[in-house]
């Protein structure tokens, strides 16, 4: 299975592959897939527990405008099918895949009346349901950012968040 562990700090003990905004990476055991400081963005992890192959997507927005022809990895709706297809090319069976969904926070109160974090989470749940991949780990919403470290060997998602009181306390 896959599990979630919240830690104050994460100390990697194996090779780490970092994923930037609007990007994804696929890796196999033993490695760590990482992405930093998700605010309203979401990280979607797809994992084949038998092959120990996984992918991490860092998506910024729920879906593209109809007129827009840009990087499909920026969007939840277009990125998941692409990465799923890449995993299948590597011999992964869709039916073995499980997923994790992390992020979608609302870091700034006045940033938006249309809460992008919530919309990203909603879109990810919808798309994962459509492609038939169960979400087994979820850590979403709230008001602080999250950094995500997925250890493929341990099938563990480590999540860190900054402390809010750091001046004199």
């Amino acid at each position, binding site marked *: 299975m896959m599990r979630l562990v919240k830690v104050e700090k994460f100390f990697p003990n194996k090779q780490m592959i970092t994923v930037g*905004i609007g990007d994804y990476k696929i890796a196999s055991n033993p490695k760590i897939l990482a992405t930093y400081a998700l*605010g309203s963005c979401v990280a979607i992890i797809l994992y084949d527990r038998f092959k120990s192959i996984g992918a991490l997507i860092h998506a910024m927005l729920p879906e593209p405008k109809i007129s827009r022809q840009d990087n499909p990895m920026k969007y939840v709706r277009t990125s998941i099918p692409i990465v799923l297809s890449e995993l299948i090319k590597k011999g992964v069976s869709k039916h073995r895949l499980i997923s994790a969904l992390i992020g979608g926070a609302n870091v700034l109160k006045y940033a938006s009346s249309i809460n*992008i974090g919530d919309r990203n989470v909603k879109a990810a749940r919808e798309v994962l349901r459509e492609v038939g991949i169960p979400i087994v780990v979820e850590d979403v919403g709230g008001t602080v950012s999250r950094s995500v470290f997925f250890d493929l060997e341990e099938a563990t998602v480590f999540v860190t968040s900054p*402390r809010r009181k750091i*001046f*004199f306390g």
Partner: protein
Amino acid sequence: MRGKKNLVLLVSESASKGLCERISNSISELTGLPIKVSIKSRAKKAPEEIITSLSRNELIVAIHSLIEEQKTHVILLLSVSGARRISEILLLQANMELSDEEALDALREFGNIVFGTLTSELSRKVGGKVTYTLPEVVIDYDVAIIESLIAPLAMVKDVIEILEFSITSGSEEELGFDMLMIPGDNV
């Protein structure tokens, strides 16, 4: 649109000079430090480009407010040490305790001074009322904060306009902070 017109006025050379001087004077009076505010850049960029160029994956303190009439976000980005120093200066002046809660209050007040000066200057220039939301203080990674401001705009625009101020202290003390202005209705 009124918002756009005001924004053009705000960023014109003469208007921005006066604005920077007023904000510099306010912060200098408040902190007792020689502060100089200037416009660092005005740019129109793709959303991801803005996030990448402004973020260094560092923990920062952000003081954020929304100028309501212009739907413009203004945000002060301070290093943690700079924010601590600003709050120390303000709290010691007020003879208050140095707790985290008091520090956050001090930073909100600091935001009030800066954004109050900004909106009063704007009110004077546009000849109408300009108000701002109560400053919100957030401690988080710069990338998460910038992304949270840019993502809603990226939903509707491919190019976003942003105005970056630099705030430097003429003293030996390094306070390390910047101010961004992101017009919400230029998108």
